[in-house]
């Protein structure tokens, strides 16, 4: 039985500035046939520690400690010796299958190359044949033919399968998977996780699974290691750690997950943001954010680094507290503050039959020959005052296009957007300008959504000036007020975006949207690029603003748990169409469309069952340019019948307020 032993591993970067201790004294041991999940937020050192196992760190990285593979020391070993281990004994799968494959070489060549490196006497043809076999094993159909394809001809999930095939072609004992599913859709993520799990069993692999998503760990890892600021803060069998965390960080992180929260409740967010690895707090790195700091006498949390100690066999945690107190009352889920007004029946914004066609670029020499693709097809939805509607679906389903159509960043091909008695869809941009005040947008990326050349003051003040909301002299004060509203220090108004953390940047973006006192905010994945602990803060802020100002949200997300926590109504989109829509309780509680069901099932939830106990949706979202006939979901649908190929199901009400586009809706069935 092979063993991978990591002992007191430290990785330090020494550049011109101060030394960065990315990983400090990390130890773990992994046996073949088991999966170790390493969890942590950005900058915690989880990926750096993984790279160290294969000696892949940057030249400037100083690696100390010991990494032994079946007794062979890797740290400090000659380059050739380490190279011989790479890919043959320990293989690696990276986060982004898009960029991890060479774009100009065929999949087969790249996989075969991995084989031939370690089997130098193998011919190209034989290696290619093996590559095809391996591709077949990881679930690529027609593998023998597809070895000749280039990465861009593969879908994201297929690319990750190919990466796994490449990693496993030399039959390694250990596989290090660094965020292998982060870039993938939730349904595909489930497939890949299942695949990894299967392969582990089949080949007796030892897997190190690195992820920021506790849900992912919970579904496949045997043991879990929680990292914070370069150190292991908690270790133990997955179930035990998730059910009974011993370290405040783990506990708070789990508590802030929307999936564990009651709908509409404020989330018990961890204050602050993950520390910058180049300036770690003294003592326990978590102490500035820790709710229990008062329980440790003498301020030891500020000064002394707690040891990693075992409270019981197989469990380790790093905290001065022997045991955590019961959850504080203050963090216990509280109902959202009462709304200023109940959602009225009359929607503020009523979108009907919205349709958008795009021309495929460069399809022909003549303009007329352009092929058109319908990316949004007959979408209707309504936003009510003081209420949120969630729009969920996989990548490319058209949800972002819907958002941009509504705020008229794009012009709809047909359909109406009724607001305050007028149709925004046909309004000219000039006429639209005054209406824009009422209709704002929050964006996904806190980096790209702020102009780096402007100060926070300018950014928040621009809408005030454009719409002349306050007189010129009043702008300064109004910006300060807005900053306070979104929880920013008004004294930081003259700072540039890069001087703020990503959570703070997102707050600036919210303040900018808020400046015009909008009635409706379209939020396009506002929290998906934030760390879990920060995500909760932003969701809380959005809730608070809704309660305070009665704003109606159109909330776009791929994360179903966030939507459930945040939105009263949900619409599920598939390939440009809404396939199911209704109240939160109905859609989550009694999903009627097989796609909705599959989506819900695919969410890796801390509380979710392990592999094999749930249905995983096969296939990947098809190309919008090639929509299947009849029901567009039928190719992936487990209950598809002949009629589905011929007749497109209309959106019909199956229960009060719940409408589904399916020939065979699962009426009244409970979720899962």
């Amino acid at each position: 039985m092979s063993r991978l032993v990591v002992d007191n591993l430290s990785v330090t970067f020494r550049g011109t500035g101060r030394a960065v201790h990315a990983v400090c004294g990390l130890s773990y041991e992994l046996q073949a046939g088991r999966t170790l999940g390493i969890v942590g937020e950005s900058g915690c050192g989880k990926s750096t520690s993984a790279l160290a196992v294969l000696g892949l760190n940057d030249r400037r990285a100083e690696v100390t400690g010991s990494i032994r593979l079946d007794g062979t020391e890797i740290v400090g070993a000659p380059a050739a010796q380490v190279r011989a281990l790479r890919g043959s004994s320990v293989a690696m799968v990276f986060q982004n299958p898009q960029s991890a494959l060479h774009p100009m070489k065929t999949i087969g060549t790249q996989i075969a190359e991995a084989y031939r490196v370690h089997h130098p006497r193998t011919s190209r043809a034989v290696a290619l044949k093996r590559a095809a076999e391996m591709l077949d094993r990881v679930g690529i159909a027609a593998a023998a033919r597809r070895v000749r394809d280039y990465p861009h001809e593969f879908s994201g999930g297929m690319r990750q399968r190919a990466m796994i095939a490449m990693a496993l072609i030399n039959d390694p004992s250990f596989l290090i998977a660094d965020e292998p599913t982060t870039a993938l859709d939730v349904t595909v993520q489930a497939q890949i996780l299942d695949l990894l799990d299967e392969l582990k069993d089949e080949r007796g692999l030892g897997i190190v699974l690195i992820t920021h998503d506790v849900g992912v760990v919970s579904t496949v890892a045997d043991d879990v290691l929680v990292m914070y600021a370069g150190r292991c803060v908690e270790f133990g069998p997955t179930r035990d750690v998730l059910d009974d965390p011993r370290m405040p960080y783990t506990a708070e992180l789990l508590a802030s997950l929307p999936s564990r929260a009651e709908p509409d409740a404020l989330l018990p967010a961890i204050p602050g943001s993950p520390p910058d690895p180049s300036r770690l707090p003294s003592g326990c790195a978590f102490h500035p954010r820790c709710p229990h700091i008062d329980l440790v006498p003498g301020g030891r949390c500020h000064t002394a680094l707690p040891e990693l100690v075992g409270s019981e066999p197989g469990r380790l945690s790093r905290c001065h507290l022997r045991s955590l107190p019961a959850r504080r009352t203050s963090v216990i889920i509280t109902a959202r503050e009462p709304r200023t007004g109940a959602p009225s029946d009359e929607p503020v914004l009523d979108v009907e039959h919205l349709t958008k066609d795009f021309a495929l670029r460069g399809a022909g020499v003549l303009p007329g020959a352009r092929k058109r693709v319908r990316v949004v097809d007959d979408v209707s939805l309504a936003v009510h005052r003081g209420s949120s509607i969630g729009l969920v679906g996989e990548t490319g389903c058209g949800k972002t296009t819907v958002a941009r159509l509504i705020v008229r960043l794009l012009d709809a091909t047909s359909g109406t957007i009724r607001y305050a008695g007028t149709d925004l869809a046909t309004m000219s941009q000039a006429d639209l300008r005054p209406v824009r005040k009422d209709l704002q947008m929050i964006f996904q990326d806190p980096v790209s959504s702020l102009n780096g050349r402007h100060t926070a003051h300018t950014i928040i003040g621009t809408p005030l000036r454009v719409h002349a909301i306050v007189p010129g002299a009043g702008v300064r004060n109004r910006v300060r007020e807005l900053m306070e509203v979104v929880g920013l220090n008004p004294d930081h108004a003259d700072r540039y975006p890069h001087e703020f953390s990503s959570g703070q940047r997102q707050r600036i973006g919210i303040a900018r949207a808020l400046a015009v006192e909008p009635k409706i905010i379209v939020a396009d994945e506002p929290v998906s690029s934030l760390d879990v602990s920060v995500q909760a803060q932003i969701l809380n802020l959005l809730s608070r603003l809704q309660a305070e100002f009665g704003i109606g949200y159109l909330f776009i997300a791929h994360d179903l748990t966030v939507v459930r926590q945040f939105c009263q109504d949900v619409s599920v989109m598939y390939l440009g169409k809404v396939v199911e829509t209704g109240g939160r309780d109905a859609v989550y509680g009694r999903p009627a469309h097989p796609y909705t069901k599959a989506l819900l099932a695919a969410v890796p939830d801390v509380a979710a069952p392990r592999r094999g106990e749930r249905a995983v949706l096969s296939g990947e979202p098809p190309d919008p340019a090639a929509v299947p006939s009849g029901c567009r979901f039928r190719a992936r649908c487990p209950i598809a019948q002949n009629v589905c190929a011929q007749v497109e199901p209309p959106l019909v009400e199956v229960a009060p307020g719940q409408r589904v586009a399916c020939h065979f809706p699962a009426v009244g069935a409970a979720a899962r």
Partner: protein
Amino acid sequence: MTDASGFGFARFDAEADLELDAPRQTVWRALLGNKVAAASGMVVAMFVLTAIFAPLICAAFGVSPNDPHTELVGFDDQPLVGPSLHHPFGVAPATGKDLFANWVYGARYSLLIATLAATAAIAIGLVLGMAAGYLGGWVDRIVSWLIDLFLTMPFLLVAAAVAAILDATVGRRGSGAFQHAQFVALVLMLAAFGWTGMARLVRAQVLSLREREFVLAARVIGCSTSRILFRELLPNLTVPIVLGFSLGIPSIVTAEATLSLLGIGISTLPTWGATIRDAEPWWRADPGYLWQPVLALIVLVLALNLLGDALRDALDPKIRR
């Protein structure tokens, strides 16, 4: 890429991926921390000062650039006097003109022409690049087509034709207008062949900026197109603009020298290129005559390039990291 021709404006294209948000302080720190950059900056500053104060400098030495002193050369045209306090760089063969004055004015004209041409090129490139990138559609197609057109025309031959045409048109109307026309034509020619790189770079930047969420945000807020272009996009183009100057000026200095060398620049100004042309036959008999302008050109262009490179490094997160 080859500056083989001396007209390597294409170099911009290599730098399409720049950090637009590079904070100014970081850039300055990176620049000042770089000894090479600091030294190059000083060299460039010295040339610029020389250029600005050329008349004063010459007056201080009591020399002037266009004043023949045939008594200082022999019948074989060799100078009879060497470098001295009165003539710090000696005098030119044949005419006995003061070489120091020539050199100082060479710096003046080189930098003046390069700065003007670079400014014009950058202005054209900026406007067309922004228009193409932001407006897209047929504007983009026309600009791209114009860029292709200018890339196909051999600069040198077109310059020669323009020079011939100027001779035959403006030249007929008298020489005062002619000299101005030559100057304007030279600057415009250099700009006309220099803007394409800038336009490509700006277009690419604007194309990516246009999809940035802050631009979308500005549109959602209701900002006008001109506000978006000038208030949101333009501040983010300072990097290409700065690089345009730092990489454009040296290549224009070189291009201008090449043209004067071939006698198709400004015919009577004592530019370095013109001095090199006059001095080439004397490379053996009076080597100093040739090496003064050549070294000046090398040092100036090298310093400008090093400065530009340091600037790009400072602006490029991949390299700074």
